[in-house]
């Protein structure tokens, strides 16, 4: 009663913050676009020139939607990984899914110099497909392991080892590749919200929402899982299937985001803790929507800063959110020395 009221107030506050950040975000960019023009574009103002409409749609709205969806997806992924691994330092990347995507992209971007004439350009679509195949391959491996292994720690170890191996393979490829390709690969790993087109960003929205809704339906089980695996089994949970569902969901979310935006760090790790801190609960029914809203807001902050801090262009989003996120991680380490997720 009292508690649900306080949740509603907190939700209202973070939603207001999100809207404010969204408005601020569409107003930041290399050229000045007044807010009224953006609104008149959204609500069907036809008096704007076609070029101007294109700029608003492809540069401002696409970026806004991408930032919000990517932030929400990565935060929910991080929350669920922290619960399933029962480790406050788990994130969407512990399974090595994004490293799989990186490998796919590296094969395309770096490999193109080895197999193709240097003039050949790698299309965005090819990068997307490569990232998708890479993350799916790692997911299959993780699923195969988690169906056989009972101990969650073993899965964590496999995830970390896969990440390590994949990173090393990418290193070897970088070593043999030429400067141009290495640079374009490195730029991809820095992450970018600007390279996503409006149509692609619209594709991301339903994917993210459907997966998050499905995962939300498992909140009750996740709440029980927090109290330990042996206990969860005694409460009638099928741990292996719950893990598989969470892994597939998280892989879909992080795989899609990584394919479009590159490996965005820190959000998935930091935002779940911010949500727990703001709502002071461990209840997934509260934390999943909260993480979505806060994740969207967090990435908008990063996006705004990456556009504002450097007047000559856009700073790499990964660097900006890491600088934003690191203080939270440090705070977590200090605050929770004795507790488990």
């Amino acid at each position, binding site marked *: 009663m009292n508690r649900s009221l306080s949740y509603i107030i907190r939700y209202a506050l973070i939603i207001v913050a999100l809207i404010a950040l969204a408005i601020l975000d569409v107003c930041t960019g290399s050229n000045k676009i007044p807010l009224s023009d953006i609104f008149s574009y959204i609500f069907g103002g036809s008096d704007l020139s076609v070029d101007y409409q294109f700029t608003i749609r492809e540069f401002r709205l696409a970026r806004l939607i991408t930032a919000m969806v990517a932030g929400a997806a990565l935060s929910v992924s991080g929350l669920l990984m922290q619960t399933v691994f029962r480790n406050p330092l788990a994130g969407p990347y512990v399974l090595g899914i994004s490293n799989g995507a990186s490998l796919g992209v590296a094969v395309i971007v770096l490999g193109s110099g080895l197999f193709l004439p240097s003039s050949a350009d790698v299309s965005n679509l090819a990068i997307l497909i490569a990232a998708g195949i890479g993350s799916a391959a790692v997911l299959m491996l993780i699923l195969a392991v988690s169906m056989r292994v009972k101990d969650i720690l073993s899965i964590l170890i496999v995830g970390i080892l896969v990440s390590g191996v994949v990173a090393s393979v990418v290193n070897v490829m970088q070593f043999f590749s030429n400067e141009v390709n290495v640079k374009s690969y490195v730029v991809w790993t820095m992450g970018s919200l600007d390279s996503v087109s409006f149509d692609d960003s619209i594709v991301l929205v339903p994917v993210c929402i459907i997966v998050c809704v499905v995962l939300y339906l498992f909140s009750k089980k996740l709440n029980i899982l927090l109290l330990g695996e*042996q206990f969860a089994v005694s409460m*009638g949970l099928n741990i292996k299937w719950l893990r598989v569902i969470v892994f597939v969901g998280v892989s879909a979310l992080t795989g899609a985001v990584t394919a479009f935006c590159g490996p965005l760090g820190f959000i998935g790790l930091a935002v779940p803790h911010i949500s727990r801190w703001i709502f002071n609960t*461990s209840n997934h029914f509260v934390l999943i929507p909260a993480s979505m809203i806060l994740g969207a807001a967090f990435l908008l902050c990063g996006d705004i800063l990456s556009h504002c801090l450097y007047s000559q262009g856009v700073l790499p989003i990964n660097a900006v959110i890491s600088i934003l996120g690191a203080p939270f991680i440090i705070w977590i380490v200090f605050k*929770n020395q004795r507790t488990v997720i």
Partner: protein
Amino acid sequence: MGEVVLNIDGLVFGHKRPLVSQAVDLSANAGDFICLVGRNGTGKTTMLNTLIGVKKTLGGQISICGVPLSRISAREKSRFISFVPSKVEAVLNMRIRDLIAVGRSPYTNIFDRRTKADNAIIEDFIQKFGLSGIADSMIAEVSDGERQKAMICRAMVQQTPVILLDEPTAFLDYFAKRRLLSDLKDIASAENRCIIFSCHDLDVAAKYCSHIWLLDEQKLVQITVDEFLNGGYFSKYQ
């Protein structure tokens, strides 16, 4: 003596290979407070895990209130048997009341919506266990003993006829051990539940439990407390 709630019929348990050389036939009544005794490695934990369904049985049947556990779903099973692990995780940002409320989850829908009756049961047991003062505290902030008490309270809220506890005294000092076992004994008879716990603190356990299930030389048998005290087991297991 209450009615028979737990029936173990020809049970063989173990990991892949059986840990007992002869099949176990035991039964327990409502109100019983049974201590499972055995040396490390004899299979106490495996036995408990088999009862709660973490381990599959290698043979035989377990029934609760006449219902064979093999015939019902895992979810339904959580209405017949509840489990208290020896150490309760200090989950971040979870309140004592939330922990206790988990006990109603076998009865709630997918959104874990609790009815007024569910909440009344929860509040009732919070009162009975004297946890009102800390019900809104975070479980990471209370002591191990209090957390465990909340977990036992949760098992009560789950309203299962059989409750299993894995070494509930492991992390408690001598006085807390006595207090806990004495409380559990009272709960078993007052609430008419069958409580089974594994324990290495035999001197304390023997004072309070109603029977002993002795796991020795690959056999699991029920003996009385007197038989246990006079049978020379004490020095063997202490």
